[in-house]
């Protein structure tokens, strides 16, 4: 990423919290830092001595042994409230997904704390699914992996299959997932993930899957989930879908929180920053 970009004029700061009614916070991030450590890079990479050094003296000489630290999120603080839909924007590699994973409790933070109400769930079950199994079994597996009970999955099964539209073109749900087109697989994944009601829902660019009609349906489903859920976080590069679903936007750039405010204000600055493109 170019380092020559200039900081735009600071946009209006968030006015949250000045309301009269007491609002219930669901996620509080308090000066969060997230650091990735990557093995086997940097100076002396790949040599046997460097590797040995790394294993033997792991704690003391982390840097000397060629472990690279990637500071993905820096000193980010925000408070999200019940009923909010928050968009996370920023150029590629700005730390959006990392922050989301930390909120979900999937990545440990280096410094600071993240407080949450209940267990936030990242919308995504990709990894739990197995391409050699039929769609039907994957619905069960995915549901169970998200923490639904067997009865809950059974109850929602038809709903999930109907929503995914897998069976619109024939009985595909009883075929192994490896026979699906990538679009079909993505639709099934989204449908499984969206079947559960969540307290705090984190969506990472999931709306970009499927054909136009499925995108419409999933956007509607996100809005519905938002009604049930306390708070929705949405990571997207599609400014339109952010504008349609979110009322507040956090803009991350190079791991730092650059702006936090109402969607229209932040997007205006962001679009200016990225060159006015949509």
């Amino acid at each position, binding site marked *: 990423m170019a*380092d020559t970009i200039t900081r735009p004029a600071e946009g209006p700061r*968030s006015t*949250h*919290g000045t*309301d009269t009614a007491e*609002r219930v*916070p*669901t*996620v*509080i*991030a*308090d*000066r969060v830092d997230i650091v*990735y450590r*990557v*093995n086997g890079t*940097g100076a002396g990479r790949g040599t046997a001595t460097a590797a040995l050094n790394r294993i033997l003296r792991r704690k003391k000489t982390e*840097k000397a042994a060629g472990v*690279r630290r*990637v*500071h*993905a999120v*820096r*000193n980010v*603080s925000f*408070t999200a409230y019940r009923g909010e839909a928050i968009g996370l924007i920023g150029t590629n590699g700005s730390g959006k997904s990392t922050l989301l*994973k*930390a909120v*979900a409790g*999937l*990545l*440990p*933070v280096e410094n600071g*704390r*993240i*407080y*949450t*109400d209940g267990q*936030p769930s*990242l919308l*995504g079950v*990709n*990894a*739990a699914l197995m391409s*050699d*199994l039929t769609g039907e*079994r994957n619905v*069960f*597996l995915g549901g*169970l*992996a*998200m*923490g639904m009970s067997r009865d809950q999955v059974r109850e929602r099964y038809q709903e999930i299959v109907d929503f995914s539209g897998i069976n619109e073109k024939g009985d595909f749900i009883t075929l192994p997932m490896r026979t699906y087109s990538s679009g079909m697989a993505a639709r099934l994944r989204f449908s499984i993930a969206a079947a559960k009601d969540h307290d705090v829902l984190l969506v990472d660019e999931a709306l970009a899957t499927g054909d136009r009609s499925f995108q419409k349906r999933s956007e509607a489903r996100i809005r519905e989930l938002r009604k049930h859920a306390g708070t929705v976080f949405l990571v997207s590069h599609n400014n339109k879908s952010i504008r349609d679903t979110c009322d507040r936007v956090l803009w991350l750039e*190079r*791991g*730092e*929180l*650059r*702006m*936090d405010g109402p969607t229209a204000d932040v997007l205006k600055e962001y679009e200016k920053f990225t060159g006015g493109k949509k």
Partner: protein
Amino acid sequence: MSQVLHTPPPTTAGSAPAAAESPAQLAARHGLSVSGARPSLPQYVRQLWARRHFITAFATAKLTAQYSQAKLGQLWQVVNPLLNAAVYYLIFGVLMGTKRGVPDYVPFLVTGVFVWTFTQSSIMAGTKAVSGSLGLVRALHFPRASLPLSYCLQQLQQLLFSMIVLVVILLACGVPVTASWLLIVPALVLQFTFNAGVAMAMARFGAKTPDVSQLMPFVLRTWMYASGVMWSLDVVLADRDLPSWVHTVLEYNPAAVYIDLMRFALIDSFQGSQLPDHVWAVALGWALLAGIGGFIYFWKAEETYGRG
């Protein structure tokens, strides 16, 4: 070395409603909990219990997915152990003549191979349980011990298929069905507990240092030859001039204990006198030591899995 230029942090920090209140205080007032913190041990056990259906479904799914592309399909579950036993019989029974001094050698060998394979593949799978499922670990929230447990359960299911083969072989060799066959159940329960414990410990190792999975096959192979899978330790060690502690160590090593218990349960010519003293107590001891120790060791690093 840092990837990001150090620009001063923006002052957005703390858009908290009451300016005087710190985020921690606000969180405490509304009963929010720290995200990604390690649950207490009883809590962890409860979470794990709540995911039991996922654990079994995941194991079964893995097992079925294994042969789903093969033409013979699930038949391989049975053919695989059968071929395995045939290879070992050819080499150790026919070519090397290890069968001298062992009555009912074929049942002896096949039982040994199947029981050992159960422990071996559980530990191998455990080593890769977390490091091989990083996608899952980074996408979903569940007690991570589900993974090694699930892999061990898959191996147990695999063993049950092998047991069908084993029973057929036993009957074909003229081994009578006796009441002692019921001892299979406690023997398997103990062995499963032991396997699961070691698998959990190895899962933590493997998550931290993936290199372990490269090393494990060698460790396991050494262990196999030292556990009397293909031969009777008594017979092999009888005419050797080894210190007696070597004999004791080999005899009481968990793999040998579980293999001998299974042989004692199934084969009538394998007498109780061939078992080491206090064998059930030793089997229970290994199971508890590995099971509880491995579980606690795994839990201690619960919040760090999936990092980096």
